[in-house]
């Protein structure tokens, strides 16, 4: 069972309110090391809110988020990456004026340490660090089939390409846990299949644990070890994909009581 493994991420009783609206209501679940966990739920269920708690963009009113048994809530947002948590954004958050290569190079920021003074003076070790950053970024561009657009500014590339740039940038920080926010949004059927294969490779070859927020059941169900279902900020189900798909509560949340079952 997955529960026997040490959880890399433990979400406990997480509660977030915006004014009178409860976005997350006492949500708890674990992500075991090496797993792919799908976080699903209808629009407005609180999935992205949960992600934003993990990256410390929001502070929950109650509860805790522990990464390798260390609370994230005590840390500022910029410290999350160097703990080993990378993320992508639902609506793309690239640096549009920088090239694809530079975007990915910023992903290595949390793993490097040169500062204003050492950069301005271009000390010898800074040159070596810069070469390592470039090397790592190039390797990821090759891995994600982005080498051809390396020198292109991030603005103006196709959506699917930009999604891969975001993945490359997130992986550049060598995360142990990767938070992926709706990667299939805006992709066509074939692209979704490619993405599924890619996420599997990232998990298997790079040993990255993945927490995946997604609407697209065709992506979540085949690749997830575990699925957590949110509805109106509450966890309504958790388990293996096949179990969750049969869960009457989930069917009701997604499809309304009497509707026939569909893929989306």
């Amino acid at each position: 069972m997955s529960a026997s493994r040490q959880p890399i991420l433990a979400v406990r009783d997480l509660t977030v309110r915006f004014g009178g609206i409860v976005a997350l209501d006492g949500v708890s679940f674990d992500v075991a090391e090496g797993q792919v966990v799908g976080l699903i739920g209808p629009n407005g269920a609180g999935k992205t809110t949960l992600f934003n708690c993990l990256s410390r963009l929001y502070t929950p009113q109650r509860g805790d988020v522990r990464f390798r048994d260390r609370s994230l809530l005590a840390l500022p947002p910029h410290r999350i990456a160097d703990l080993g948590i990378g993320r992508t954004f639902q609506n793309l958050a690239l640096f549009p004026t920088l090239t694809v290569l530079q975007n990915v190079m910023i992903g290595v920021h949390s793993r490097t340490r040169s500062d204003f003074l050492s950069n301005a003076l271009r000390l010898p070790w800074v040159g070596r660090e810069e070469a390592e950053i470039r090397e790592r970024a190039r390797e990821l561009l090759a891995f994600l089939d982005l080498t051809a657009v390396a020198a292109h500014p991030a603005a103006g590339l196709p959506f699917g390409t930009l999604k891969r740039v975001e993945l490359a940038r997130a992986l550049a920080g060598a995360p142990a846990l990767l938070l992926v926010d709706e990667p299939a949004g805006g992709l066509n059927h074939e692209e979704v299949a490619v993405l599924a294969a890619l996420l599997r490779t990232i998990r298997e070859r790079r040993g990255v644990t993945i927490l995946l927020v997604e609407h697209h059941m065709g992506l979540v169900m085949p690749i997830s070890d575990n699925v957590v279902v949110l509805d109106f900020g509450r966890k309504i189900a958790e388990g293996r994909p096949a179990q969750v798909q049969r869960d009457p509560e989930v069917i009701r949340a997604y499809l309304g009581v009497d509707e026939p079952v569909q893929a989306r």
Partner: protein
Amino acid sequence: MTPRARAVGVAAALAVALVLPLFVSNFRLFQFTQVGVYAIALLGLNVLTGYNGQISLGHGAFYALGAYTTAIMIDRWDVPYPLTIIAAGVLCLVAGFLFGIPALRLEGLYLALATFALALAIPQILKYFEHWTGGSQGIVLSKPNAPWGLKLSPDQWLYFVTLGVLVALFVLARNLLAGRTGRAIVAIRDNPIAAQAMGVNTALYKSLTFGVSAAYTGVAGGLSALVIAFVAPDAFNVFLSITLLVGIVIGGLASISGALFGALFIQFVPNWAQDISKAAPWAIYGVFLILFMYVMPRGIAGALRLALARAGRRGTGTRA
């Protein structure tokens, strides 16, 4: 092609700069020294506004702080002038960093207004501390002579001093902006939330960038005090701050060479305007401004980059 073209451009500009004193009058040379001084100030402002996206309408205040630091240290304590320039830079680094901390809470136009307040206040503050600043009368300095028995007039010597400082500061800025720090500075401008998610300490980077920017402008101010041999409060009014902003936009935002082009513009275009019409020089200046923005919407540096890219493409096109 591009790095090579850039190297050729830099070498040519340096060669011209080195032989310039042989060919121009002392007054012209003084004007070119001013161009160098402005270029340093503009580079500082461009790091902040062009690269980091923090708009400052108050960099004249740091220019003034640098100028008065140099003037007071020489006038009061007879400190050797190279030290006063360093002191001007350090003091403005600290002042800029400290101003950068509350500025973190302000974005875009709100930050512009806060810095504008700084620009508004500085002449009166200078007059208020009359004991130190000489009030409205200002402080008169004498230009330093060339050392080591060099056969250079003070104006020529100051030209080379400014050129040396300019080259050193441009190299430092280039290094800073080309590496990890520079990418983070630009990332904050492009998307602060994503920058944070990548591990960039945006608060620290923004205040440090403010400090570095102010330090450049402060060094420029210190040099200007030496070059003009005089400081007075009304030289550092709001108009100076606006002029600096005009300089970086005309020269090219987020461009290092743009600082030099912008400096040439703000030094010489007002003079041309004066030559064209004594009655309405600022109207002429305004026409120049609009014309430049219309013809070169990305500034002079941006237009040059585009022209070079086109030429390069045509070159490879004919070869193919």
